[in-house]
């Protein structure tokens, strides 16, 4: 029983991280139908920025929760900035181009950002200090849920709620939904499509940055390559849940997280990465638009 509940917690933790990143993918896809390959790198840059900020602050004498808050805020700001810039430079000029062009551009951007961090920093794995506070009330349960896992799960849940409120009840959210549904029509009723798209990128990147900070504290080390792997998994999760659908992304991420956790626990950890893809192929065979996706009919 213990084993099972531990695996559950592990699955939730993984799922939460994947969800934070998957949301970015799904929102961007919903709005401009582009697989933003570089999104994983934004997550990585968020983690790196947090690391740099945290180190600078610690060495200037600060400590404790203020380092965490400050580093996270700075990471979010920077990731948002990177997301915004990438969109403006690499995707906006290609709005009218055939589908393949922005995809290639995205792949190129991903490679560029990876190597940019590699060269500017280092290829080593840099240890990340655990900025998350140790929660005392969890003491008796440490053997199956740690502080970091708890914080990750709770933070993600809170963010989900906030995001849903944003999408459903704010003006910006309405604009985003409108643009995703039909861009030309949205522009006709006065929505500034460019601004909405930029905001989508900004929000998605911020979420990824938070994910980056959390996971870096949890695992304890980062390097320039973590974006790629996490990105692919998160994207798989988004597609799994039905790309373009926000609840779908969260569902897909949780499904993926649990599958991986239980698969590793009960079967074998050798094929850990394979679970994601096999799951994806299975779901897509039986439900080609993903779990919560809509089958869009093609107009002739």
């Amino acid at each position, binding site marked *: 029983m213990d084993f099972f509940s531990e695996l559950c917690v592990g699955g939730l933790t*993984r799922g939460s991280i994947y969800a934070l990143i998957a949301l970015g993918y799904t929102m961007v896809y919903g709005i401009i139908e582009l697989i933003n390959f570089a999104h994983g790198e934004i997550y990585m840059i968020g983690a790196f920025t947090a690391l740099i900020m945290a180190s600078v602050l610690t060495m200037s004498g600060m400590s404790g929760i203020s380092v965490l808050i400050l580093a996270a805020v700075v990471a979010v700001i920077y990731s948002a900035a990177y997301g915004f810039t990438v969109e403006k430079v690499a995707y906006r000029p290609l709005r009218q181009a055939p589908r393949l062009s922005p995809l290639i551009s995205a792949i190129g951007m991903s490679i560029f950002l990876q190597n940019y961090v590699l060269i500017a920093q280092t290829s*080593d*794995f840099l240890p990340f200090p655990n900025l998350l506070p140790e929660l005392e009330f969890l003491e008796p349960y440490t053997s199956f849920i740690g502080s970091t896992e708890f914080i990750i799960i709770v933070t993600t849940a809170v963010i989900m709620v906030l995001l849903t409120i944003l999408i459903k009840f704010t003006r910006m959210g309405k604009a985003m939904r409108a643009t995703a549904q039909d861009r030309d029509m949205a522009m006709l009723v006065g929505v500034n499509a460019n601004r909405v798209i930029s905001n989508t990128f900004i929000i998605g990147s911020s979420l990824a940055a938070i994910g980056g900070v959390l996971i870096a504290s949890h*695992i*304890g080390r980062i390097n320039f390559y973590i974006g790629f792997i*996490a990105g692919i998994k998160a994207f798989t999760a988004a597609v799994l849940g039905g790309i373009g659908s926000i609840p779908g992304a969260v569902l897909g991420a949780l499904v993926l997280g649990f599958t*991986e*956790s239980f698969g590793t*626990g009960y079967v074998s*950890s050798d094929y850990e990465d394979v679970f994601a893809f096999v799951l994806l192929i299975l779901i897509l065979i039986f439900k080609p638009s993903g779990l919560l996706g809509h089958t869009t009919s093609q107009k002739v």
Partner: protein
Amino acid sequence: MKTRFINISVFSIIVVISLIFTMPAPLPAADTIKLGVAGSHSGDLASYGIPTVRAAELVARDINARGGILGKKVELLVEDDVCKPEVATNTATKLASKGVHVVLGHICSGATKSAIGIYKEARIIVLSPSATNTELTQSGKYPNFYRTIGYDRNQARLAVDFAIKRLGLKKIAILHDKGDYGKGFAENAKKYISDSKQANVVLFEGVTPGAVDYSAVVQKVRQSGTDAVIYGGYHPEAATIVSQMRKKNMKTLFISDDGVKDNTFIKVAGRYAEGVYATSHKDTSKNPLAIAAIAAHKKTYGTEPGAFFLNGYAGAQALLYAIKNAGSTDYEKVRKALRSHNVETPLGKIKFDNKGDAVGVGFSMYQVQRGVYVEVK
């Protein structure tokens, strides 16, 4: 008409320029001893290859300052193979066609395996500071290959002997990082444990480097009821696994390999590193040459040397002094010199056996005690 002319001329200029680029570089000035240094100097495995380059640079500088080898200066030809087998074959061909006499490299076992055939046919001696794949020397297929590091099987044997005989462990879980080095170590360990019939392998799993969460594997370790974990791989993953285990109040012992016996491991794992065992080459911290080499590195490059630095240093010295002892760069003579003459290096006084492994470079077991790796006698 005019545009056509312009376009054609632009086209031809491009063709000419590309032809210029493909012109082979003129052969370097003759009469130096050419030491090729091949390894991963860029990309994600650069931190394993660059220390060897620096070691070669320091050794060459040292020797040249004292008059060179056989009256000739030592020249370094550094080539990058990014630890990829297909690039390594290109690198090997390049070095061979540039007329290197001996090669220090490659760094990764895979790259070495693909390049060694080329060197063998060109009759060039190769010495690796870090390729631990057992086959490279033990199979006997590559008489031109030498190394200044112990091979996988020996490391595993030491770890297993220590675990069973010294620590008296009965149940052992084996983890690895799915890489060539780590998995090799792990599989050899598994074999030795089952051969010994004195202990059981209760778990054999690979962890995915860079995964988002390791708790599942750690859970499995706990579930298996094991006394200890033997881990094959490098320090980043080892640090994460040990930290997670200790955070969950697991008292499982942790025994690992050379890739973890690194001060970086202690720094990253912090207080969780305490008590961790790791095998590595015999203690060199008191060796005066080692101390001098590390100091020289700090002075020239401003940082502590990285992985395999001392192995690379010893390797460069072994190669160059073998040429000196042989009195020429002739393949057979140098091979003989490597086997017959001892060379003083930071790893101790070494020479090579018939298969190409270094004699005098053995393994020892270390443990982290009070934040420092201490040799366990």
